[in-house]
């Protein structure tokens, strides 16, 4: 036995022990009754304190999980689309030289009104619009205006695509969150059914999935007259104050705003006093970390100078290194090329103004634009009086939802409940027993056919299974039927590898070599066979994992883990064991192969 053999043997023993160590928590997890094991704290109490806190999960098909039904507010999507359409129509008419007509949209009803003093202009606008926009119809005309609505077909299409987009965004989020193999499907007209395996964190699931994540950048208006006009109307509890920042040419710009401790009172007041057309109120939460209190304040936002978050390429958490910020986490956004252009233009046109970053209708922050930002990068500061780790958690969640895209319409969680395994317990039991039966049959067959080296191969196969399960437990992955299929395939390939090795050694011995020489050349020659077979499958596995989603991905993950384990156990492990026996003169040609 040379030195390298001991290194190898040591490594194999280490892998085996590490696998057992990684699987111990899973054993205590599965020992718990099925209806309790997923409740908070139960598993942590049951596992040995020295073992890792991760365990194998069973997927929806084998164990069940949480069941959410989310309602997409499609009507709101439709109305907002109509209101946006109003702006589009206005510029379109302008462009087509139909001047003097005003177009307004109503977000509440989705009705677009076109008004023009001159009947000729009105008629022109009407023909222009009905010609160009086949998805709208004229509801009626009275006096100097007519009203438009989306046609039924168009409405239905919009609703459908809103639901489809929401499904896509939700799937993205779930995939990025790392939950393997959820069920996501449309239910009824405007609902989405989501089932997630396990019950581990329903609150977080709801928070992540329900968030609209609509991000907008809006310029804060320089004209604060709508606020100062309210000066004498302010109810108690709402006060007026001024922002000061350096404007163009170094002059100080003073902007009035309202602030209050009671959010409801402030919103009630702003709703009662709407902004003039083209402007809107923005609301922001202010956390004073020293006084430890929260207030709310307003901004005047310019509706026409804005950019939406749809141009975001990537979002990630970074730490604010500036002095005084104490490494506070912030979310850095990277725009795509088009977004970078638009953002560059927005910041160039509005230098020395404030830009509000609006997330889900709340102003997150409103930094001053000191100079044009053309690099396509921008960051959102995380507010709040919470401890650092909670802020970090919030920042991570925000980055995740921003990256996976905004929902086209707000969603509400309509139902939340727990569900049992979709395959049914009887199927799982029978499946598990018959699978174990099949595996035992293979092990016995190998031992009978290859005798001693068959038993060695069996040891390798068992170790292979152990390693795969251990890695999956360590990665906190979820075992589902497709995953088990991938596992079966890798066991099949591990059997094949062992068959190849043993057949090869037999062949070599028939040419009259000694057992040592046969072992040596056999393993050397068969190495590339096994290598190419496994690597080809690995290549396919990696590609499928990268591009596929859902169950296909789960299959690929187990396949990759299994192939790597199979290469290790069949090439390294069996060889080390056989070499030990040969080295000690315990193997005889005929008995052992």
């Amino acid at each position, binding site marked *: 036995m040379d030195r390298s053999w001991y290194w190898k043997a040591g490594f194999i023993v280490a892998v085996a022990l590490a696998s057992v160590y990684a699987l111990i928590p899973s054993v205590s997890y599965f020992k718990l009754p099925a209806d309790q094991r997923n409740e908070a704290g139960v598993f942590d109490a049951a596992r040995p304190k020295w073992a890792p806190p991760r365990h194998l999960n069973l997927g929806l098909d084998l164990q069940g999980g949480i069941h959410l039904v989310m309602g997409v507010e499609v009507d709101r999507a439709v109305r907002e689309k109509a209101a946006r359409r109003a702006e589009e129509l206005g510029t379109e008419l302008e462009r087509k030289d139909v001047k003097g007509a005003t177009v307004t949209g109503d977000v509440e009803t989705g009705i677009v009104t076109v008004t023009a003093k001159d009947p000729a202009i009105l008629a022109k606008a009407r023909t222009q619009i009905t010609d160009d926009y086949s998805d709208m119809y004229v509801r009626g005309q009275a006096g100097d205006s007519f009203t438009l609505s989306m046609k039924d077909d168009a409405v239905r299409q919009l609703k459908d695509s809103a639901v489809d987009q929401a499904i896509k965004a939700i799937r993205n989020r779930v995939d990025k969150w790392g939950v393997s193999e959820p069920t996501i499907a449309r239910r009824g*007209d405007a609902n989405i059914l989501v089932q997630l395996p396990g019950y581990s964190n329903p609150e977080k699931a709801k928070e992540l999935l329900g968030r609209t994540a609509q991000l907008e950048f809006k310029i804060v208006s320089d004209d604060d007259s709508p606020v100062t006009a309210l000066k004498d109307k302010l109810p108690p509890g709402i006060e007026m104050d001024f922002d000061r920042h350096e404007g163009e040419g170094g002059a100080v710009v003073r902007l009035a705003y309202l602030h209050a401790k009671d959010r409801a009172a402030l919103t009630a007041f702003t709703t009662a006093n709407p902004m003039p057309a083209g402007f809107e109120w923005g609301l922001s939460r202010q956390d004073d970390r020293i006084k430890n209190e929260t207030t709310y304040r307003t901004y005047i936002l310019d509706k026409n100078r804005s950019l939406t978050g749809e141009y975001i390429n990537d979002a990630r958490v970074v730490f604010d290194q500036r002095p005084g910020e104490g490494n506070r986490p912030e979310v850095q956004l990277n725009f795509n090329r088009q977004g970078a252009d638009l953002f560059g233009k927005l910041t160039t046109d509005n230098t020395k103004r404030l830009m509000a970053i609006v997330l889900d209708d709340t102003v997150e922050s409103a930094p001053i634009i000191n100079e044009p930002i053309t690099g396509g990068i921008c960051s959102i500061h995380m507010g709040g009086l919470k401890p650092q780790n909670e802020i970090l958690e919030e920042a991570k969640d925000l980055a995740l939802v921003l990256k996976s895209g905004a929902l086209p319409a707000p969603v509400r969680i309509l139902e939340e409940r727990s569900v049992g395994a979709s395959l049914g317990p009887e199927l799982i039991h*029978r499946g598990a027993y*018959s699978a174990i039966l099949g595996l035992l049959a293979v092990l016995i067959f190998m031992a009978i056919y290859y005798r001693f080296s068959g038993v060695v191969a069996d040891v390798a196969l068992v170790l292979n299974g152990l390693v795969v399960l251990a890695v999956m437990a360590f990665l906190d992955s979820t075992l589902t039927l497709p995953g088990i299929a991938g596992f079966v395939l890798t066991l099949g390939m591990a059997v094949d590898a062992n068959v*190849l090795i043993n057949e090869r050694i037999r062949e070599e011995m028939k040419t009259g070599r000694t057992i040592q020489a046969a072992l040596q050349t056999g393993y050397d020659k068969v190495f590339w066979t096994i290598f190419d077979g496994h690597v*080809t499958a690995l290549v396919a596995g990696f590609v499928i994992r990268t591009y596929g989603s859902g*169950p296909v991905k789960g299959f690929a993950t187990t396949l990759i883990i299994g192939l790597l384990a199979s290469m290790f156990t069949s090439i390294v492990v069996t060889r080390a064991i056989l070499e030990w026996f040969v080295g000690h003169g315990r193997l005889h040609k005929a008995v052992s192969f």
Partner: protein
Amino acid sequence: MELKFVELIKPGTAHDFVKYRRIAVTISIVINVLILLGATVWPGLNYGIDFAGGTELEIRFKQAVDATALREEIARLGFGEPTVQQVDAAEKHDFLIRVERISLLTREKADAVKAAVQSSLASAQPTTFRFDPEVGDKLDFSFKQTVSEAELKAAAEKAGLTVKDVRTISARDGQDREYSLIAQGPGDKIGSTLREKFGGEDGVEVIRTEYVGPQVGQQLRKDGIAAIVYAMLMILLYVGLRFDFRFSPGVVIALVHDAIVTLGFFVVSRHEFNLTSVTVILTVVGYSVNDTIVIYDRIRENTQRFKGKGLKELVNLSINEMLGRTILTSGATALSLVGLLVFGVGTIWDFAAAMLVGIISGTYSTWYIASPMTIWLEEYWSHRKAVEAARPKTKGGGSKPSGEAAPAR
């Protein structure tokens, strides 16, 4: 102590695999085309809920019900492979049941109701009428004026519709009034059947019946197909680099063949094609690739060992040398499925059976599809080489003998 080897295949076995390649490939092409036609034109795949969507029922039982019995009962009603999930706490006896799409209202029936509503509500003509067969049990009307729900219900019932509910969707001023008629559907039929089997008249309550969309929508399908196409390209590239580019097409054609034959199991058996079926096909493809690569590896090795021999001979020799291994491996893999085939039910049995079909196909395709492909490509290549060599001034110029599949290693 002296024991004999256990050997399945005697050394020196020499079946002529290459000889039957034309017949084999012809038969395979015919079978593959038939399966593809069967999957797309007639009779088509029996798509499960995962792909086709279905109907979801929520049912509440008074007493405890065994999920297994419930599943079997619903399957007996003719709904293929239902999904039966217990929801919420076990004490509530609530179940979510997903079955294949049940066609609820027909278009004709919906039109009859529309006509009835138009004729009986003479004063208020509906401005729009909508029926979505995907939703199935809901008819939407809108009117210029307010209509009483009772009136609408009476009108629909005149057309023979059993109305479960009339809902006012919107009645805002200045807009059309919208109403939905909810029809009594087969959901209630399942309810009444279950009522007979499980616990009396008021023991079973159908809480709701709704259409569920496919889990695998257009996007996922596209993603999946793209992933598989990329994977094939990468296999082509890898085999080309490690072996020879003349070997690459054989691997891919063999794996496509095996995927199609496995699909054939679902076409012929009419068993449900669902997400599990997709993973079976992926598994078979993985198995097929490995099987082919092992034989290719032997061909590569023998090419170096026997320099003078033609490719046909080498292919035959290699397949025969590996015959023992191939039968052992396929046998062992098949053996591991026996338990599932004997004791498995439903999805799990389908899984095992389709896998068995795939393994047999994978073994066959290596012998009769992948290997002949290399021979044909080799013949085509040397033919082209000969033609090109003949074209320049020096006439004839010895075209090289076949068997030049030079390994990249």
